């Protein structure tokens, strides 16, 4: 069993309430921080922990915090990014639903470290039930004296507010989120200036993912060094993985970074193998934006080493043969799934969600959707495949925010690894409408998984 830091008490009945959370060691980090630590001490612990942003980019959190400008007489803000919208990702919903006080405690401790007297949790609007849960948790924390004026006699004042979004994937991008929180369309801003200098209301702002802020609690409790002992290399600590698709046990799992992909998919502790006795065809390992990999390349790197659930191991081989850990949205495809159809589906998503500011993204995502639609529905030409690669290349790197890249990568990687399936859609259009291409040469090369294999 891997060590759990965030979900250690998730099965305790009533852990969503203040009293039970408190009885299980909750708000210990807040007491420790406000009574015995300076804000610099906390930033130092977070730096030592090696914690990296859990929303997808994986940027070192301590470093992000240390960039925050501190001009005299100007408010600073912490904004929690709970706009969880990356297809395949549902860990933040889980955390907010079942252990909301962990996020509230993390918000207060992190705000103390950053010197922010007001913080906002920006929750996607569809998560109205989670918004109510958080509002209740905040009211409970306030009643206990952990929010408000002069918390625990420390002289630190703090209020946390919950803000609903309106249904827009782009608001997960931090500057779009800030725009949205200001009551505007979610159009990403041109950077610089970065939010650390000029963010919410033109004040210095840190935007962190739900899981990142929650992880500050065990870091303050146990120290950054202890946290850094978990994991491998620069992938320290634990990570929530959202597992979905054709798995026996989809759900949210807290893993110690470094578990092998094979163990994660096949062991009973985690996903319990592919559903309905089928074979694995492909995996999107870190949310829809990251490159899709065929089964053979997700289980082992091109060098034949076991692929591990770490930022580095998943990226091994670059985009030629690797992918990214991203947000930890782990989507498994069984042998009956159609890669062309899924790629069309993802392209439609990005076209729908493009904010429209940058032409390469606004137009390009629409072209890719159209071309993929005709490939999937039997009207494609062989030249369409290279056309898609060409369009994706012209979007990538040519937009204000990463949505362009996020739209380009799934298309480029699907063609890179499953080109024969795209060609088959063109050469056998009628057949492609009736049945799927199947596994071909990129199939999961392993025989029926045996438990001892995962011990390697």
């Amino acid at each position, binding site marked *: 069993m891997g060590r759990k830091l965030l979900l250690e008490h998730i099965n305790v009945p009533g852990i969503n309430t203040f009293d039970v959370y408190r009885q299980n060691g909750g708000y210990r980090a807040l007491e420790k921080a406000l009574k015995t630590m300076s804000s610099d001490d906390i930033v130092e612990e977070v730096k030592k922990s090696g914690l990296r942003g859990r929303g997808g980019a994986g940027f070192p959190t301590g470093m992000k915090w240390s960039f925050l400008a501190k001009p005299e007489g100007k*408010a600073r803000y912490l904004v929690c990014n709970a706009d*969880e*919208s*990356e*297809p*395949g*990702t*549902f860990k*933040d*919903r889980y955390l907010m639903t079942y252990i909301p006080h962990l996020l509230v405690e993390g918000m207060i401790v992190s705000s103390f470290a950053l010197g922010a007297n*007001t913080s*906002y949790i920006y929750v*996607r*609007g*569809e*998560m*109205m*039930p989670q918004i109510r849960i958080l509002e209740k948790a905040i009211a409970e924390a306030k009643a206990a004296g952990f929010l408000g004026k002069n918390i625990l006699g420390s002289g630190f004042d703090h209020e946390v*507010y919950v*803000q*609903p*979004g*309106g*249904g*827009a*994937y782009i608001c997960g991008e931090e500057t779009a989120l800030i725009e*949205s*929180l*200001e*009551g*505007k*369309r*979610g159009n990403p801003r041109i950077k610089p200036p970065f939010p650390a200098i000029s963010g919410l*209301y033109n004040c210095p702002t840190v935007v962190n993912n739900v899981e990142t802020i929650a992880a500050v609690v065990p870091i303050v409790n146990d120290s950054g060094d202890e946290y850094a002992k978990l994991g491998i290399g620069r992938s320290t600590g634990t990570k929530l993985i*959202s*597992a*979905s*698709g*054709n798995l026996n046990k*989809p*759900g*949210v799992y807290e893993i110690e970074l470094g578990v092998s992909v094979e163990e994660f998919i096949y062991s009973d502790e985690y996903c319990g193998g592919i559903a309905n006795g089928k074979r694995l065809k492909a995996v*999107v390992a870190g949310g*829809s934006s990251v490159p899709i990999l065929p089964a053979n390349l997700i289980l082992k790197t091109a060098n034949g080493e076991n692929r591990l659930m770490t930022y580095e191991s998943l990226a091994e081989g670059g985009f030629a043969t690797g992918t990214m850990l991203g947000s930890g*949205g782990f*989507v498994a*495809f*069984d042998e009956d*799934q159609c890669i062309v*159809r*899924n790629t069309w*589906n*993802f392209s439609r*998503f990005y076209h*729908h*969600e493009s*904010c429209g500011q940058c032409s390469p993204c606004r137009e390009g995502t629409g072209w890719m959707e159209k071309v993929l639609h005709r490939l999937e529905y039997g009207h494609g030409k062989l030249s369409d495949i290279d056309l898609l690669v060409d369009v994706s290349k012209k979007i990538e790197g040519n937009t204000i925010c990463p949505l362009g890249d996020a739209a380009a990568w799934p298309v480029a990687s699907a063609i890179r690894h499953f080109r024969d399936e795209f060609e088959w859609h063109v050469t056998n259009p009628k057949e492609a409408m009736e049945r799927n291409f199947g596994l071909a040469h990129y199939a999961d090369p392993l025989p029926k998984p045996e438990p001892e294999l995962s011990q390697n």
Partner: protein
Amino acid sequence: MLNIAQPEEVTFSPELITRFNEIVTRYPEGKQKSALLPILHLVQAEFGWVSAPAMDKVAEYLHIKSIEVYEVATFYTMFFLKPLGKHVLEVCRTGPCCLVGAEKIMKYIEQKLGVKEGEVTPDGLFSWRGVECLAACGMGPVLQIGPEYKFHENLTEAKIDELIDSLRLTTADKPQIS
């Protein structure tokens, strides 16, 4: 927005205004525009959709221009700019849900309700539409129903039958458009 019949006038109840007032206190002075999204959600929960006169009223309340409300309401997909059924079934149509049968579920709902995506059933009770990823991929297929946005997970045809039947029975009600 232009082709939709709009109500002559919209009135916000004192209770609604009280809730607006509370929301505005969450932001620094002069930054009341931040309250726009939470307020639009309340307006939609009250009236079933966001009409042009309602948006004008919101603009007036927040001391901003009407266009600032229109541009926001048209950008975010959760706001309905025309009246829909009393219950709007929003089914996730993105990749991970499709791997576990979301497309079949949408077809079944279409056939069961007898109306196409975005239309309203003749009794005014139901609409349905596909929406993008609802961040519940491990429980797919999923759908949500506002204004509470209760989630219905691991959908099957039997569960859809049950859900629609139970919604038909709840008839207590305020009119859709006031």
